[in-house]
């Protein structure tokens, strides 16, 4: 088994941290963009770009409520995202066991 078996979309430090953080919540719970950004210490632009990539893959959903300065964006890990992370971690363990 090689590193190529790891999901390339997840195998990036920032996106891995985003998914692991969201996976610590119960299924269906949402986390605000601001709290996620504070927890991961990423710039807003960086976080937005990673979230878009993960959202395009169906690993998470984002929802914006309100308008202007009062707007709030929340992020939710989907079942597909949780499952993809589990598969990634299993593959990572298998890879490390083989080293």
């Amino acid at each position: 088994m090689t590193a190529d078996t790891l999901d390339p979309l997840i195998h990036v430090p920032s996106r891995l941290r985003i998914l692991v953080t969201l996976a610590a919540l119960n299924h269906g719970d949402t986390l605000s963009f601001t709290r996620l950004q504070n927890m991961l210490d990423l710039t807003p632009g960086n976080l937005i770009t990673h979230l878009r990539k993960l959202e395009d893959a169906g690993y998470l959903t984002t929802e914006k409520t309100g308008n202007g300065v009062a707007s709030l964006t929340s992020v939710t890990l989907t079942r597909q995202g949780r499952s993809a992370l589990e598969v990634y971690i299993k593959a990572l363990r298998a890879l490390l066991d083989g080293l």
Partner: protein
Amino acid sequence: MNGTHGTGEAGTVDEGGELDPREAALIVKQTAIQARRQFEPASPLAAVLGAAVFLFGYGAVWWSMRDQHVYTGPAGWSIAVLYVLIAASAVVGSRVSRRATAGVSGRARRQMQAQGAAVAAAGVGAWVVEGAPRYLGVSFKIVYGVYGPTVPLIALAAAGAGYAAAREKWPELGVAIAIIAVASGSTFFGPLGACGLTGLGCCIALLVYAAVLTVWLRLPPSAQQ
């Protein structure tokens, strides 16, 4: 994505390059531990404060009654000490809980609200029932000396134990059961025992819980299952 954030920094996005599998495993472990700690509404500090409430609050009540050969009840100052400590502990617990759930919505928040309602109902119900035996002629010594410091506490701990069991929160379940056991057992030792043993026993149980929780929050999620 967020009205207050632009996407102008997208060009600096970190794609990670060649991420070593060992490094990835470390990121998974560290991030999971950090997330659990930040989302966890229980805190070792709140547990230590709870232990202080039992030691000094119940201790004050016990101290004020220790020389009574005939039960006349605790001194007013000791009741005041107990309630001030309970209020301070509730404020700290509430702040810790709010900080942990800030920005989180959905099932977790609803569960916490439901838990709060269940625990409050159990505590208020047990406290109200205290009036019934007194109304039926049971002595002050039993109603206020033995029932008062133990039964509402047992009801609160039982509600907490049910919630902890449903969410598989083993340290919380353990401390709730310990509190129930200590408070139940102390009722056999009269008003002094009810206050003294409950205060001391629950203080020890909460200190042990704080130590366990400290270790628990440092474990990787796979080891917490």
